[in-house]
């Protein structure tokens, strides 16, 4: 419908304001990273905050986050890729039931099933509490529905005719999958990997609730805030982990987008 100009201008300003409110915290945190205190408007720009971080222990936390991201990605690709393929391409009894079951975890608030895992481990495997495998399993669980959905979508948008053509040409199903299906769904595969990686590398709740021995970056920052409050050096830590994770994701995206064709051929 036709709205009058003042109304349209007001609505546009409201939308921009909302966007600004949502983005402002990130800008504020960047400003805080380069000042001596966290006051607004910012004064005294320095790089002192970078020097006030206990770098070795924070590096360990970042490394742990990245390791968690890497292993989660590999684990989830290994188990979700075949499952998504089967759910999208094969017809078998119980298929619709299974595709619903896989999305059941999304109706659970994250904290409830992670604490269920925590209690289960504490009672039955107390010696495994806080070890890497448990943290990995708990973290990866949360990303399963997202990864399966992304992979299923990329299978659904790829015509099965390519696989059939490869079979008739003499390719074994596995050969057809590796040489034809994988390269064609490549972009979807990268999207799914990026979802898994960021979800794990930026995760806080599983590591926190499962009492990970080595904290992830998010957990480390949370403990740091508990000790010293919101200081410029904490802002620097947040900035660094975000830059690292987003940088890796972007780098992966560009490397694979250019070279994916050459990977399997």
């Amino acid at each position, binding site marked *: 419908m036709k709205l009058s100009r003042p109304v349209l201008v007001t609505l546009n300003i409201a939308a921009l304001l909302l966007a600004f409110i949502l983005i402002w915290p990130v800008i504020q945190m960047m400003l805080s990273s380069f000042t001596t205190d966290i006051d607004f408007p910012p004064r005294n720009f320095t790089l002192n905050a970078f020097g006030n971080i206990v770098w070795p222990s924070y590096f360990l936390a970042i490394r742990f986050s990245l390791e968690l991201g890497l292993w989660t990605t590999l684990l989830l690709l290994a188990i979700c890729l075949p499952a998504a393929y089967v759910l999208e391409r094969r017809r078998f009894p119980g298929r619709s039931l299974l595709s619903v079951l896989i999305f059941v975890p999304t109706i659970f608030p994250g904290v409830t099933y992670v604490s269920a895992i925590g209690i289960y481990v504490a009672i039955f495997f107390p010696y495994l509490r806080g070890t890497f495998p448990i943290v990995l399993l708990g973290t990866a669980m949360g990303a399963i529905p997202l990864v399966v959905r992304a992979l299923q979508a990329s299978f659904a948008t790829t*015509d099965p*005719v*390519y696989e*059939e*053509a*490869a*079979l*008739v*040409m*003499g*390719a*074994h*199903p596995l*050969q057809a999958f590796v*040489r*034809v299906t994988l*390269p*064609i769904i*490549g972009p979807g595969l990268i999207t799914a990997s990026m979802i898994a990686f960021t979800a794990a590398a930026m995760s806080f709740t599983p590591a926190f609730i499962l009492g990970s021995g080595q904290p992830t970056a998010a957990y480390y920052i949370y403990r740091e805030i508990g000790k010293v409050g919101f200081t410029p050096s904490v802002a620097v830590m947040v900035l660094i982990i975000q830059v690292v994770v987003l940088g890796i994701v972007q780098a992966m995206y560009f490397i694979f987008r250019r070279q994916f*064709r050459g990977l399997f*051929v």
Partner: protein
Amino acid sequence: MAVVRVESLVKRYGAVTALKGVDVFIPNGSLTAILGPSGCGKTTLLRCIAGLLLPDEGRIYIGSQEVTRVEPFHRNLGMVFQRPSMFPHMTVYENIAWGLRLRRWQKHEIPRRVREILELVRLKGMEDRRYNQLSGGQAQRVVIARALAPKPDLLLLDEPLSALDAKLRAELLAEIVDIQRETGCTTLLVTHDQSEALTAADNLILMNEGEIVQQGAPLDIYRRPQSVFSANFIGTNNMLPCTVARLDAPGVVLKLEDAPLELVADLPAFPVEIGQPVWACVRADDIDVIPQETAPHYRNVVKICVERAALTGGFVSVEARLEAHPLRIHVSGSARFALLEQSPAFLTVSLAHVTLVPRD
């Protein structure tokens, strides 16, 4: 190159039976077309022969070997699909060469064979292009080349032209026929387009509702349909309900139902007796319009009333009434503009163009 035999093939999808005991024989080196309306089971039959579907009953032989349960990748076939299937992540060269490598061709023979086959489909010099650098027709020709390169026993074409526009379709069809003649590869073409099947094939299989209706040379099926379905599916046919009045010297004399009118037809392939009800099939294209004064010189002259005449391209399509029965006529040549709506005209049809089909 090989003969293909299919024996009483049955394929069910749940409660629906897509193939109801189909028997097919495809001669060596032929270009056989399977023609039928959509949903008649022709694609199912092709996919069973390709090995992409497992039939429930029956056997399939390619050459002397039974392949009913053989995996598709062990069958040595070439296949062209309805939707574009050139691998988008490989170049034209890689698409074809990969197929050759899969069929264990010697490394040094591959480049030569790719060049040879690309020349055949007129894509010379396009080796390094990818799917997005080719037109739809070119991409489909790559798929044809890819299918033919390893010298398959049998080439399967699953509506290979339906994704292309009309002009390109005719062009590529002519090329497919040329390539087939040149290579001599036994070819099976599935299509729902009768003109495609009639143009290309030297052997035609007509299918309907999971069964083979008629099989033979295209001209034969066109001229001598053996069932109501065959008569109606190909071309525009007029079906006139008649009874056999008497058997006369040149053929059969038929009496048109509900009208004091007689037609003469050639003797049909099936035995007829006097009083038997039959359909007299007369193609709209086989009817000639004649001036009233020349009528006595012809057999099978009828007087009709023209109801509607419409120019549709090269011929005039006429809806007329022969006594109580509707009649459609395609008139070409100089006579086509002489017909006036709501006025009478005289028609004739030769004995050979009246085909009889049993009626019950």
